[in-house]
């Protein structure tokens, strides 16, 4: 295997090269950190605009942390601080407890709060089973008789809140959690959201976008919802065959001239929608078949790769926008699906030639070191509050804690897809294992792995699918 990721290897192995590259003499840090992460990029235009000012400010707030120059923090020999695991767990458990009146703006997104906290707790290895009984009661209260879950009691069912509730129930797991869900009502409701253009409305009378496509595909596949449309659904009247009809071509219409994916046709390419698009397609069929068939993959890869900035190391969501920790997941989680899309059933879905089982490492499309540095230094709230954040000038919140940690686990683990040769088998088996070469971070800071498509623990995803596979009807 030709290792081409010289920088990473050098940094970890070759002290001499590292000391040549590091600019600690001018930066006051004695740690071997590559200049890539500690100084301005090689080309900067002199023209000042609103965008460049914001970018400069972002670099200014990140650099002291990236250079290991923050005297309040303890850095390891690679210039990376520890993961404040206990503090993050404590913070997440707080967000599941009673929230003060100031949280009234989150009244329509409580299922999200539940998913973010439970998923992040799982990644951190905390016990989530203690929330099972209360989650079941809370979720049951938010379910509507007409199918789906609202943001709270008496609220209209919404695909996003239903997605978040279903995933939360799957994360705590167990029959009593699964059986909260009224699958027949869910099927009818999903049928009523299906649009003649192949997409899904987020709620009755709501918007149609790629989020809807992903959320619907996740719910349908996890719960083994029958694909046939209920006879009173408007999509059925428009001549569509089933819940998946035209979904891939809806996703296709969302790819933009930049190569990325927008929320809906005509809009701007955006990282969060890229993940929704790839996730949705990877549920519909094996990635190596459906992704190249549906999207212009080279343009998508080029755009995705442009999302990573130096010196920050984190991802941005759009061209000329700022890095934000949450894209560690939205953009970071696209890469395993992209890798899989390039594979063939006869060869492992990896981009650097045939691999043997014993050496699963391969060169990453993106700079894992940069992302890990950004997350550990800039993405963590280093105060006693805990939690993860957008960037150093922002406060931590449950949303960022979930997605920054999801990004961290995807940077810590190698994913390979065992691609189905059979055209009629859509399910892909994903193998997720830790990168075993020396890492920047301390081994105890490795998170639990996550499912590359569903963004929940893989075992939990398998358990729920097995459970509902035994229930072809209702």
């Amino acid at each position, binding site marked *: 295997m030709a290792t081409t990721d010289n920088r990473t290897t050098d940094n970890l192995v070759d002290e001499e090269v590292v000391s040549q590259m590091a600019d600690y003499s001018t930066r006051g840090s004695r740690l071997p950190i590559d200049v890539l992460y500690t100084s301005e990029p*090689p080309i900067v235009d002199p023209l000042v605009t609103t965008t460049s000012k914001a970018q400069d400010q972002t670099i200014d707030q990140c650099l002291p942390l990236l250079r290991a120059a923050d005297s309040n923090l303890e850095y390891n020999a690679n210039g990376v601080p520890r993961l404040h695991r206990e503090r993050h767990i404590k913070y997440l458990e707080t967000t599941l407890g009673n929230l003060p009146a100031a949280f009234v703006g989150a*009244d329509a997104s409580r299922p999200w709060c539940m998913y973010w906290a439970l998923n992040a707790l799982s990644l951190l290895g905390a016990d989530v089973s203690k929330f099972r009984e209360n989650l079941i009661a809370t979720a049951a209260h938010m379910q509507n008789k007409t199918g789906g879950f*609202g943001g709270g009691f008496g609220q209209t069912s919404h695909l996003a809140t239903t997605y978040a509730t279903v995933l939360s129930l799957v994360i705590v797991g167990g029959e009593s959690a699964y059986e909260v869900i009224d699958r027949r009502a869910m099927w009818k409701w999903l049928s009523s959201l299906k649009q003649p253009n192949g997409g899904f409305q987020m709620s009755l009378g709501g918007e149609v976008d790629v989020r809807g496509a992903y959320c619907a595909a996740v719910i349908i596949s996890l719960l083994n919802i029958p694909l046939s449309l209920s006879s009173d659904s408007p999509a059925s009247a428009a001549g569509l065959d089933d819940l998946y009809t035209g979904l891939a071509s809806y996703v296709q219409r969302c790819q933009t001239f930049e*190569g990325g994916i927008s929320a809906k046709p005509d809009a701007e390419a955006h990282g969060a929608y890229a993940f929704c698009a790839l996730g949705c397609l990877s549920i519909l069929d094996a990635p190596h078949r459906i992704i190249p068939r549906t999207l212009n993959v080279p343009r998508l890869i080029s755009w995705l790769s442009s999302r990573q900035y130096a010196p920050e190391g984190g991802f941005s969501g759009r061209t*000329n926008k700022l890095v934000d920790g949450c894209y560690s997941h939205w953009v970071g989680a696209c890469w395993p699906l992209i890798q899989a899309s390039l594979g063939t059933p006869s060869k492992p879905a990896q981009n650097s030639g045939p691999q043997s089982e014993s050496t699963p490492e391969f060169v990453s499309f993106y700079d894992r070191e940069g992302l890990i540095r950004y997350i550990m230094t800039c993405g963590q709230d280093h105060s006693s509050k805990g939690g993860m954040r957008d960037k150093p000038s922002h406060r931590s919140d449950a949303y960022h804690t979930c997605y920054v940690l999801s990004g961290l686990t995807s940077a810590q683990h190698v994913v390979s897809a065992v691609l189905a040769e059979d055209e009629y088998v859509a399910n892909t088996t994903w193998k997720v294992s830790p990168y075993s070469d020396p890492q920047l971070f301390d081994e105890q800071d490795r998170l639990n792995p996550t499912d590359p498509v569903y963004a929940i623990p893989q075992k939990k995803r398998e358990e729920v699918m097995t459970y509902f596979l035994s229930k072809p009807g209702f």
Partner: protein
Amino acid sequence: MPPKNNKGGVNAKGSSAKQEDLTKTQTVYERAQAVYDLTRPPYDKEREELGGLHNLSTVEKTAYANWFCTAPEEYSYLPKKAQKELWKQVNESNRPLRRGQIDKPRPDQWGRDKNGRNIGDYTVQQYEQRIETQAQLTCVKALGRSFASKRLFASKGLVDSSTGEKYTLTEEDIKAEKERRKEMAALTRALYGVKMGPYSSDPEWDDVVPIPQMEPEGALAAIAYPEDYDEAMSYLRAVMAAKEYSPRCLKLTEHVISMNPAHYTVWLYRFANIQHLDMPLLDELEWLNEVALDYLKNYQIWHHRQLLLDHYYPTIADTPDEVKRFARSERAFVMQMFAEDAKNYHVWSYRQYLTRKLGMWENEAHGELDSLEGMIDDDVRNNSAWSHRFFLVFSNPRYATPDSHATEPDPQVPADIIDREVAYAQAKIALAPQNQSPWNYLRGVLVKGGRKLGSVQVFVEQYVDNLGDAEKEQVRSSHALEHLADIYEEAGDKEKADLCWKRLGEKWDRIRLGYWEWKRRSMKAASS
């Protein structure tokens, strides 16, 4: 041991001292206790304090026992002589002979007030005030009940037998009742701390039975709702369940949105009300503008605006001047939003919707392209503006192939438009060559026009000098270098393409090394 002061020391003075205690009494409990003490048998208090009758002196015991005998039912059984002796002893003891039918007061028997304070600890004056307030509330409630009966009678067309006239509910009555409700709310709150919100205290909402949240115990991420929000939501659930669409519901949604604009359910319900009531569009838009400017990040607002337009467009569709005027005013508002955040994703999505809905394609008629150029002049790195320009130019139904994909050539787009867009992108690249937006745009334009990337080779090459020459290499744009690589690859010049990617990974865009290396490997793999 019996206390010394009890030995004959009790006289008329003691009695007057007790009277004084009563007037000086501070709290309700103390007053009750004092009254109770005054009506007890003589030495009963001492008996209690000392732990039993056996601890009293003989005189005290006698006085105590005699008190019971003076009760009429007991006294009548005594022989005359004994009666006489009894009265003699009573007089000698010099203790007042009071008798009351009151139980020993408990300190907590008055309950607690709204603040958890024991009412027994109130001063007498405070307590009297409270009683007065309670009486006031009772009166107001009684008047309210009479209003409710009058309303009921009026609705049934009944006749008032005392006047012979039909019951009617006047504006004055309603006004008076509203005032009474306010008073009632204030009194209830003052007395019991129970807040009567604006809905439960508004007679207009009397017919609605609110549906409270009823959160299960231990619910996750439960919010301690502010009282106003909690009440408004309870009424909202009730009217939604009843599928009521009315002006009062519209007002209710406005109230909830002012407290929580991210509440999608309320927005959807608001639109349903507007549909049913056929509300004037401009009123709603005016209100919506304010909300949008108050909550810049909110996105429900933009979907709502889109629904409004879908609903009203048919009424103006046949009047081109009207459409034009409307397009102008909508853009003016959108621009106001961009002054706050020029990259607001939802506002841009709305602008794309607006362009299609109102057909704002032609610059002569709508000035959309001019407006965009102004934004790009303000910030040439505003990728949202570039993205909108691509949509505006390449989705124009006058020439573009319907449903032509953004990453595919469209032979229907006229060559002069491709030329114009190439020139525009190049002019903007010249301002700041390391700005990726116009580079992405340029590539998109060339693809649409079915032109080779190499058609701009000369332009691109001016940003890259002496590539591969360690001494003299100059790159003024990593994006130029990326383009150059693709131009060379397109022309089959693999060595040069490979060099570009190699230098990108080594120096000019190192963070994307993994990608550049993949490009190099892919090209090699394709040629082997």
